[in-house]
Structure formats: structure tokens, C-alpha cells
């Protein structure tokens, strides 16, 4: 199914996905809020200790008016008041669990494209939580070959870099390796995104079956699915990093409230893009599912006698139906 294979009047999954995210934007806001609160709380201890040092010190101006790396390093190298990294790991894990838990509810809302009650949302989240947790094991297994490929590129890069007179070939191999690994990681993510969509849409209890089915789906629809996913990824990356660059280069360093606002807009956009991918994938799969028809029962072709006594045959020859079903490319309807 590619972009030119939709019915006239049917919007592209990208647009439909965006529309779904917009209609269910409450989900994005909630996750964004949790992300913000967790990040704030993770650094709260550090912020407190930093405040103890900076709030009443004139030397803190070196961090406010411009940003002195030396002043920042000094802040973190004082033996009397050591500043540790806070509770970053704990909150990162907590956020991971929250997202893992909420994914079922999010996909269910996108599948039904209707506002779920809180109870329905949590019921769906709980229903799929263990399946998705088990799915992570498969995902980690899928990451092994990616890691091996990455390690091969790394070793190759090291070898070429250290043996070649010019650093160019080594850097090129390193760059290619980075791109390859990034693309593979995106594919793995897309694969498991689809496995999660299948699990929810089909209410598939067998995780392994969802993963295998998603693999087949991705294999047979690599172009349309990959392009759907990559476009959003590229848009998210470009906007995020360009926005960050613009703000760092041209934003006033003392505008703290504005910095907060710009930063949160970028984070929100990044997050929304992730949900956009989820919604677009769900829309894509639902349309794919609609287009699929059960495999026909093929009637054995009759053998007929060409002798004059039976010719012409009494009934017209049956025309076999096209073989369309899950795992094959659907035709236009």
C-alpha cells in the first residue's frame, strides 16, 4: 500500500495519524507533563544544592550573563559541597515503565479513535502491559544483530582509521556505520511498533505471533511503512535540532522563562512526533486490515473431455479469485 493506493477522498495515514493525535491530544499532554515532572524531580536535589551555592553569590553572574564553562565546572568540583547527578537513573526507569504501561491505552484509543474514559484507558493499559513487557525481550534479541553490525563497523572503522594514511576513509566508514545502525534501529523500532499495533488491534495474546506477523508485514510493505515512519522521524529530528541550534545561537542567555518555553515546545514537538508515528501506524494497519479479505476457497479446475460428445462444456469455467490475505499486498479497492 503506497501513497497513491488510497481511495479518492481517503486521507493519507500521515494526515490521518496527525488528526488522531490531535483529537486525542490529551494523551500527549499527559505524557508530556509526566516527562516534565519526572525530569524536574530527578534534578530537584541537584537544583537545591546548586541554589544553596548560587542564590546568594555574586559569582553566579558568570552563569547568568553568558555561560562560563569554567564557572560551571567549578560549581561541580567543590569538595565541600559535592553535587552529584541526582536521581536521573531512577526517574528514567520510572518514565520507561510509565510509557510501557501507557502504550496499550494509547494504542487502544487510537484504534477506536474515540475518547476513552480513564477506566477504559487504564484497563487497556493493564491488559497489554505484560504482553509489551514480554515483547521487550524480543526487541532486545532483535537488537543483538544490530549491535553486531555496529561492532563490525566500529572495528572496521578502527582498522581503516589506524592503517590508512588519510583519516578520510575511516571517518567515512564510521559515518556509514552510524547511518546504517541508525536506520536499523529505526527499522527495529518500526517492527516492534507494528507488533504492538497488531497486539492491540487484533487483541493478539501471543506476543511471538505478533512479532512474527509484524515482521512479515514490514517485509512485504517495507516501502510504505518505512517511509511513513522515517518521514516523521526526520521531521522530528530536523525541527528539534534546528530549533535547539537557533535558540542556543541567537536566544538571549538571560531569558530564562523564554528558554523554558522554547525548550518545552521542542520537547513537546519531539514527543508528539512519536505519538504521531504510533497513530499513523495504527491507521495504516487498520486500513490494511480492511482491505484484506479471507483467502478464497479454490475450486479445483475441472478436467474436461475434448471429445465432441461433451463439448462445449455445460458451465462456464470458474475464474479463481485473487489470492489476497494477511501477508500479501492488497490491491486497490
Amino acid at each position: 500500500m503506497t501513497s497513491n493506493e488510497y481511495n479518492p477522498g481517503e486521507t493519507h495515514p500521515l494526515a490521518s495519524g496527525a488528526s488522531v493525535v490531535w483529537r486525542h491530544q490529551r494523551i500527549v499532554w499527559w505524557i508530556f507533563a509526566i516527562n516534565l515532572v519526572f525530569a524536574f524531580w530527578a534534578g530537584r536535589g541537584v537544583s537545591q544544592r546548586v541554589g544553596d551555592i548560587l542564590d546568594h553569590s555574586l559569582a553566579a553572574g558568570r552563569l547568568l550573563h553568558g555561560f562560563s564553562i569554567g564557572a560551571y565546572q567549578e560549581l561541580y568540583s567543590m569538595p565541600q559541597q559535592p553535587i552529584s547527578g541526582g536521581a536521573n537513573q531512577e526517574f528514567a526507569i520510572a518514565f520507561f515503565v510509565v510509557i510501557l504501561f501507557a502504550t496499550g491505552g494509547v494504542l487502544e484509543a487510537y484504534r477506536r479513535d474515540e475518547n476513552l474514559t480513564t477506566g477504559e484507558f487504564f484497563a487497556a493499559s493493564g491488559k497489554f502491559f505484560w504482553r509489551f513487557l514480554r515483547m521487550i525481550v524480543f526487541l532486545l534479541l532483535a537488537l543483538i544483530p544490530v549491535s553486531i553490525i555496529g561492532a563490525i563497523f566500529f572495528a572496521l572503522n578502527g582498522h581503516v582509521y589506524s592503517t590508512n594514511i588519510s583519516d578520510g576513509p575511516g571517518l567515512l566508514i564510521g559515518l556509514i556505520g552510524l547511518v546504517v545502525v541508525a536506520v536499523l534501529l529505526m527499522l527495529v523500532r518500526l517492527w516492534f511498533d507494528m507488533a504492538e499495533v497488531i497486539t492491540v488491534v487484533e487483541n493478539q495474546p501471543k506476543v511471538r505471533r505478533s512479532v512474527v506477523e509484524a515482521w512479515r508485514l514490514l517485509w512485504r510493505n517495507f516501502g510504505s511503512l518505512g517511509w511513513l515512519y522515517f518521514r516523521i522521524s526526520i521531521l522530528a529530528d530536523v525541527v528539534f535540532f534546528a530549533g535547539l541550534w537557533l535558540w542556543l545561537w541567537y536566544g538571549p542567555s538571560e531569558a530564562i522563562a523564554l528558554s523554558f518555553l522554547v525548550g518545552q515546545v521542542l520537547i513537546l514537538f519531539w514527543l508528539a512526533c512519536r505519538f504521531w508515528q504510533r497513530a499513523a501506524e495504527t491507521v495504516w494497519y487498520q486500513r490494511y486490515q480492511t482491505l484484506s479479505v479471507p483467502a478464497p476457497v479454490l475450486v479445483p479446475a475441472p478436467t474436461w473431455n475434448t471429445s465432441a460428445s461433451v463439448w462445449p462444456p455445460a458451465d462456464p469455467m470458474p475464474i479463481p479469485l485473487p489470492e489476497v490475505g494477511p501477508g500479501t499486498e492488497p490491491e486497490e479497492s
Partner: protein
Amino acid sequence: MAEFSRASRRSCMLWTGLVALAAAIPCYALAHAAQQYSETAAVSSPSAAPRTTTAATPVSAANAPTPFPITPNPPGALSDRIVAYSIDARLDPGTKLIHAQETLDWRNTTGQPQQDLPFHLYLNAFQPTSAWITEARRSNPGFEWKPEDYGSIQITTMDATGFGDLKPSLHFTQPDDNNRDDHTVAQIHLPTPVPAGGHVVFHIQFDDQLPEVVARTGYLRDFYMIGQWFPKIGVWWHGEWNCHQFHDNTEFFADFGTFDVRLTVPKNYIVGAGGDLAGETANNDGTKTLHFTAADTHDFSWTASPSFRVITSTWRGSGGPVLIRILMSPGHEGTDDRYMKTIKETLDTFDQWYGQYPYDRITVVDPPHGGFKAGGMEYPTLITGDTDRLIPRSLRLPEIVLEHEFGHQYWYGMVATNEFEEAWLDEGINSYTEVKVMDHLYGAHTSFLNLPFATLSEDEAERMMYLGAPNYDPLTQFAWQFVDGSSYGSITYGKTATALLTLEKIVGEDTMRRAIHMWFQRYRFTHPTGADFLNTLNEVAGQNLDWYFKQAVSGTQVLDYAVEQVQSDPLDWYQKHPSTGKGAQYRSYVVVHRIGGFVFPTDLEVKFDDGEVAHETWDGHDRWVRYTYVKPARIISAEIDPEHKILLDRNFYNNSYTVRADARPRNKLTVWGTFVREWVFQLCAWLT
């Protein structure tokens, strides 16, 4: 080992004190210090003496033969030219071997006969049981040995004109650590002494096995950086031989002289060397021989690679034209102009501030990618840079490295201090002038990093280095006796630079520049000591700064002042409704605290809410002082060192206190910290 270290350091102090006395400085403090050092020396065991303790053989000059009287140096010689090396070397790229013959003409200017002479064999440091490798492993337990790290220098024959074969008398000595496996110093015993005023001509054949580049020497692919590669005689200094083993943190010390070197390399190799190219001959075996000469230098290094790209230019200074020759490695094209601009501007600045660059060339070697172990090194008239294709222009690392290494042409190249024993005199003073020159060229706040949203200055970078390990070792510690490499770098580079920058705030920038200028003019082409440097500073500053030097140079005290308490209380506080409006009287207190052991006079600035400012002077001797004010105004802030003179203060944040909190800096960090965390959390959630 600890006892040995202490004794060695004290022995160094002994000499520092003696030199100070010899200079007849009428300073009680120095005399007192010398007395202390003498007392210390009296209890030092001879076996723990830090320098090579090859005592001069007590043969009277009258009894010694004087067949080879020294000839005077030619007019115009800048140095005493104690040594004259003539070396004919052939590089074999296949085996990474150098086969060479060396002739060394050594002039005995020691004032006494000499029969036992030590030689440095630096390349033997790169063996698993040497002092160098042992110390590297001690500093970094993750240090791994691999066969390519092996390096050696092997003397195959050695004789001297009129003395015959000396090889049988050649033996290794370990003056610093008694590690019998260390073969970086060898000594020969002459059948008869070289009389005072005589000279001896050694003929040495040796083979170098080059290691894969380490400690700024060796090979990497087709690149060769050849430093410390020939048998080099020690220095007779302060009445004894000074010829230390090669250690992990040590550098070098040698006498000035002349070099006449012929290098045979494959004909497609481009060669750079610390000398003038006097001739080039093509050989029939696919090689070529290049002839280099140098005078008034104390070392000769060279580099070779078929992949170099040569860029030349000429700079004109007060001493005439100087040929700049940059040998660039592939892939570093983007740094060409950065190197050239830096070297020219640095030459300019040194020429104007400190004195004339007397040589007619400077060669800059750009090591190839992965060759950072050859990067950032100084040899006379040849320095190595360090860069990478990906270093942005806003990060001035290539500029800093090149400026620093060029600075060594003055601080080590010409003012040839003992890098083994007083590394702060070359690395530290050079780090100070690096800050000055880089600030001058690239701006005081942006001399290290200049991004629109973040900056780093050179003085901040040096101060941060100092704060990495501020209180283990004094500046005067022998280089191999620092607790570890971190302390060596922190103190030798960071603390010296920061201490001199602080001193500059006391005596003034002009005075400091004049002092460094005099240090150069007075001691170029000699081997001065730390005492000479401090005496020069005292002399030019016109004041006795020993109180400062004792703490900053010889001591390990840390300087840390803090505003401990700021409080304003209504005089009628006991009333039910104390007066707080306009005209109300307050009793205000400021308590300042000296947290560290370093005593330094400073100022205190106290601001009141009626706009009045009170200035106090605190000598810093007491641990704390309370200042009390009765005024019709409340304190709004108190700040120690309001002009930010004391860069040695380890914590700037506690130097001031404002009554009203300003949460903006904290909020700024919190905003960005939260942003980064949110993003990282989302990346982690990618797995779901």
C-alpha cells in the same frame, strides 16, 4: 620510597637556597630558607641523592694529561656550546630501526677533571620493566603493554680519541629509583680523566628500535617522529652530574652546543628537523641523505613521512627573517591557516613582549590522525601541533597547542631550565605566557572556547586544571615524585599559571611582563633555577614577595576565603515594633573566614542599601574577622576580593554574599537540566 622522595626534594631545595645565597640576595627569608635547606641536606643519605651522584674523580689537574685543550667558541656564539654532536643516521622504515654513528665532542668546562661521564639513553624507557613504564602502569592500572610499544637504543661500539675502547666500562646506573631494570642512563669510565679545560671526542655506534609513537617519539604508519634518539651526555650542574632516568612525567635537560646531522631516508620522504638544511644528496639505493646543522641548541629531533604536505612562509621579526615550515598530515587541510596565523602572531607577541627569537627557522610538525602521542611537543626549532579534522574553529585547541609549544622555544629552548627537577619553570611559566598570548590574540573571555552560548577563557582552563588536584605537591617537586600524573599536570601547569596570574594582579601586568622579559634576557642560553626566577620577580617588582612564594611555590596550602555571615539588626530590636523605615539605625555584621591554609591580604567590599560602600583590608592572618557597622542602612552584599585578583582562590562562589537571593542562575541551570533530562528520558523510552 616516600622517604626517598622527600629527601630528593629537599636536596633540590638545598641547591635553590645555595644559589640564592651565591647571588648575595640580602634577604633574611632566603638566608633563613637556605639554613633550613642546609640542615635538611645534612641528614640526607647520599644514596638518596636525586641527581646522578657520579662524583668527580679527585685527580688533580696537574697530574692529568691535557692532550686536547678546548678551543674557544666562535664569535657570535649565543651559548657556551659545551657539546658538539655529529651524527650520521639511516632510517630503515621496514624494521623501524635507525642505524647511526655519533661523534660527540664534549668540552670540560666543569673546572675539574672528569673521568666518569653519564649518558642518557632515553629510548630504553619503552621497555616493560623500565622506570617509565612502571610509573605509567602505577598511575594508570589500565595501562597495557603491547609489543609495538617496545623501544630501545643499543650502543654497539664506543670509544674516544686517545682513550681507546670504552664499551667494556659502559654500565647502566639508576640514580633515581635503583630500579636495576631501567637502562635509560649509562655511564662510562675513562682510563684517565679529561682535564679541566680539555675536551674528549667520543665515537659511538648505536641502533635505535623505534616504538609505535609514545611520549612524542616513534612511528605511526609512514610517519616518524624521532626525538631523544641518540646517546646524550648529562649536564654538569651545580658541582655534580645531573643525568636523571627517564620517568613517566619527566622531560629533559641538556647542554647547549652544535649539531651536524646527516639523515638517510627513502627518497620519497619529506623530512623536517631542528636545524638548517645544509645539503641534500640522492643515493643510488633509492634513498637520499639530508644534511642539517644547528647551533646554540641543546637537542636535535627530526621527523619524516612521505605523506607530509609542506607549507612555508616567512615572518620578519626584530632578529630578521624566520622561515616557517609547516609539515601537514593528510586530512588536516582545514588547520593550515590556523597553524600559520597562530605561529606568526605568537612569534610577533613573544618578539615584542619577551625578546628576540634568534633562530632563522621554526618547523611545525602536524602529526597524522591517531598520532596524538606525537602531538604537543617541543624541541629546539621544531615543535609538534595537534589537531583533528573535526575540531571547530570556536574551539581553539590547535591554536593553544601550537602557541604553547612555540612558547617552549623560550622556556626550555633558550631559558634551558632543568625539566626533571623544576618542571614548573618551563611548563608553568609557559602556561602563564600561553594565557597572556592567547588572551591577547583571541580575547580574555573567549581564548579557549568561543560559542554564542558558552565561553571558556585560558585562565579559567588553567585554574580548573589546578583545582583538579590542588594540594598534593608543591611546584618545586621533582617531576617524577608527584603523587601521580594528575597532580603533576595540575600543579606544574595549572597552579603555576594561576599563581603567576594572581601575582600579576599584585604587582601589575606591566611589571610582570618586564619580569618575564628580564628572566628571558638574563638567562637565555643558560640553566637557571627556580631561585633565579623568584629573585628576578622580586627584583623587577621592587618588593620582597617571598611570603607569597613560600606558599604558592614551595607550599601546598590551598587558598579559600569565604563570607561567612552577613546580618543587619535594628538597634532597637528589643522594642515591640523596632524601627525599620528610613533613618532607622542598624547594627550590621560581616564575618569573613579563611578556610584554607594560604594567607593572602585582600579587600572586602560591603554595600549598603543607601548606596554607601565600605572598603576593608584584611591581611588574612586570622582565621576569621568580624566587621561591625552601625549605620542608618542595612547591608545588601559583602564581597571578598571584589576586583577578582586572587585566581588561586579555589571557590569563587563563597567569596560573596548577597542578602537578597537571586534565583536566576539556579533557575537557568534547572531549566536546561530539566530539558536535557526530559529528552534523555524520552530516548530511554524508545525501547518501549
